[in-house]
């Protein structure tokens, strides 16, 4: 009885509501049906070309393995909220984090430049730069040989595992900064400062990046360190001049070595060429001499054949030719009479340069006598 009455009471109470619903349905049932269909389809999502989407069904990831969890670009069918929730992540976008934890001025990390107490300036170096570093305000790292260097880096990363990054990993920038710093501190700690500042830089970056990635994996960050760049790697300001001096000494040494090598490179071929020229000349002379000798020998043999046939004539001819040659090539010829009694007594002959050759002959002769 009582129940019947309460029902009818509810009915009476609900009457205006049901009247409203009925009226609404009659007027707008197409609208309502359309809305219901649209709601049912609202889970369908478009995944863009640079994105990967994961589906949460009642909050739980759909799919057992990361490969099954991740849906590539295209249409993705899912139930409407609150059953399914779709998370789209841009996995191809590379983001950048500057890492200045080890930089000389770490104003971004700490509470900005700390005002110095007036009495704190007493250990200034010769250049007016403070000869120390406050570890709380100045970032730096120790190298393997206990030198101090400042490092500024830029880490670039992208999301590799969207589910891990979105739901389980630490905040990307926090974990990156910490892992990269730790990896760099450790990698610097096993190298000498000279390697770090010269040819070891690539090694340093590679080692640090590898360590940082291992750390990111251990931290389940879902991130991939796509590149690590050293934007600055320098010794402390107070020591910059000393480091530069080593550098310039090195360059000077290299230059003088290069000069010496250039000297050697030009001196040896020059000497070689000189020697070659001399040898060539000697060979030429030798073959010349040989040819002359052979010619002379042939001429002599020919002469000899003639001589054997007519010894007296040939001899006479040769002798006459020689005397003619001698008489014609001599610049002065003086004739003197034969000695009287086998000797000349006090005869003087003056012989001068060729222009005096025209002197009268008698002068000498008269002087002689």
């Amino acid at each position, binding site marked *: 009885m009582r129940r019947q009455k309460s029902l009818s009471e509810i009915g009476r109470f609900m009457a205006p509501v049901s009247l409203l619903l009925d009226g609404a349905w009659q007027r707008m049932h197409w609208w309502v049906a359309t809305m219901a269909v649209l709601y049912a389809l609202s889970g369908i999502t478009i995944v863009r070309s640079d994105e990967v989407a994961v589906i949460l069904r009642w909050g739980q990831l759909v799919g057992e393995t990361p490969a099954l969890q991740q849906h590539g670009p295209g249409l993705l069918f899912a139930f409407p909220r609150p059953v399914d929730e779709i998370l789209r992540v841009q996995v191809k976008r590379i983001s950048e984090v500057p890492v200045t934890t080890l930089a000389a001025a770490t104003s971004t990390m700490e509470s900005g430049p700390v005002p110095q107490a007036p009495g704190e300036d007493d250990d200034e170096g010769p250049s007016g730069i403070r000869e120390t570093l406050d570890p709380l305000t100045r970032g730096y790292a120790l190298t393997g040989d206990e030198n101090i260097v400042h490092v500024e880096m830029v880490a670039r990363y992208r999301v590799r595992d969207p589910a891990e990054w979105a739901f389980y990993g630490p905040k990307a920038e926090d974990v990156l900064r910490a892992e990269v710093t730790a990896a760099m501190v450790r990698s610097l700690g096993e190298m000498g400062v000279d390697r770090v500042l010269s040819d070891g830089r690539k090694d340093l970056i590679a080692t640090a990046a590898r360590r940082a990635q291992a750390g990111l994996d251990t931290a389940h960050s879902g991130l991939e360190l796509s590149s690590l760049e050293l934007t600055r790697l320098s010794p402390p300001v107070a020591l910059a001049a000393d480091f530069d001096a080593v550098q310039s000494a090195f360059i000077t040494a290299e230059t003088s070595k290069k000069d010496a090598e250039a000297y050697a490179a030009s001196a040896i071929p020059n000497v070689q060429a000189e020697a070659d020229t001399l040898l060539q000349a000697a060979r030429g002379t030798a073959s010349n001499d040989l040819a002359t000798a052979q010619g002379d020998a042939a001429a002599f043999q020919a002469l000899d054949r003639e001589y054997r046939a007519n010894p007296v004539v040939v001899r006479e001819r040769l002798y006459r030719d020689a005397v003619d040659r001698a008489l014609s090539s001599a610049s002065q010829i003086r004739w003197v009479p034969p000695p009287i009694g086998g000797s000349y007594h006090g005869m003087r002959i003056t*012989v001068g340069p060729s222009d005096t050759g025209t002197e009268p002959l008698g002068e000498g002769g008269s002087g002689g006598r």
Partner: protein
Amino acid sequence: MVDAMKTQRWLRAIVGTLALGAIVFSATAVVVKEGQAVLITRFGRPLRAATQAGLHWKLPWPIDAETSLDMRRRVYETGQTEMLTRDKKNIIARTFVVWRIGDPLTFTQAIGNQSAAEGKLDGLMTNAAIGTLGGHDLSALVSTNPSDLQVDQIESELLASTAPMALRNYGVMVEQIRLERLALPEENVTAVFGQMRAERRQFAAKFDAEGLREASRIRSEADLEAARIRAKGAEEQARIVGESAAQVAKIYADAHRIDPDLYRFTRSLDSLDKLVTGSTSLILRTDSEPFSLLQSKEGK
């Protein structure tokens, strides 16, 4: 008309059921998202923690209540603490911890929120770091000799000495500890600068000396080589000249051997040619040839 009445009745039933269902569902269902945990309390007393993502159930309010906890990993960097290594060197170290809530129940009861957890972690980590680094030399942290370095070991020691306690006492799961910073106390840096400067000067001097030495070595080697080449050339030249002289001598000897008398005669005539040149003055007796021929003609 009857059809319309029927449709309306059905519609009312469906709408009513759906509405009721939705109300019941929202009162009893607990949706645990990935990366979250939900702590369910009954009359304020913690009942259980739903850590698995998905749909869970509870009794409706006011019997059960739910609190959700963020189970994501977090990075906490400790403060910079000065400590002493085994070889009595002062260093300033800072570590960072990757942690997450490991046991929601213990975490909620013992700590409650993130900043309190980090406060506890800081204390734990500082103690552990002082203890662990006190057992190693500085060369275990920085050294150019790879066999000295023990950073991996130090980090796992730190983890071993903090993780079990953090989980048991605070419900905090420490997953990774790494040394993030290694520095020297301000007053020690001056000494390090001094050492660095001395080392730099030594290097500069070394480079200077080495450069000079190397350059003079290269130069003198080149000079030596040049002298060697010259000597070799001279030797070769002498050989060629000698051989040629010998050959020439042999040719003349072979030729003259056939008539030494004629040779002697022609040689004398050649000598005469050489003797009488443009600057020679000849003094001849008038009774010698060819003048004598003229005389004898005159005399006839």
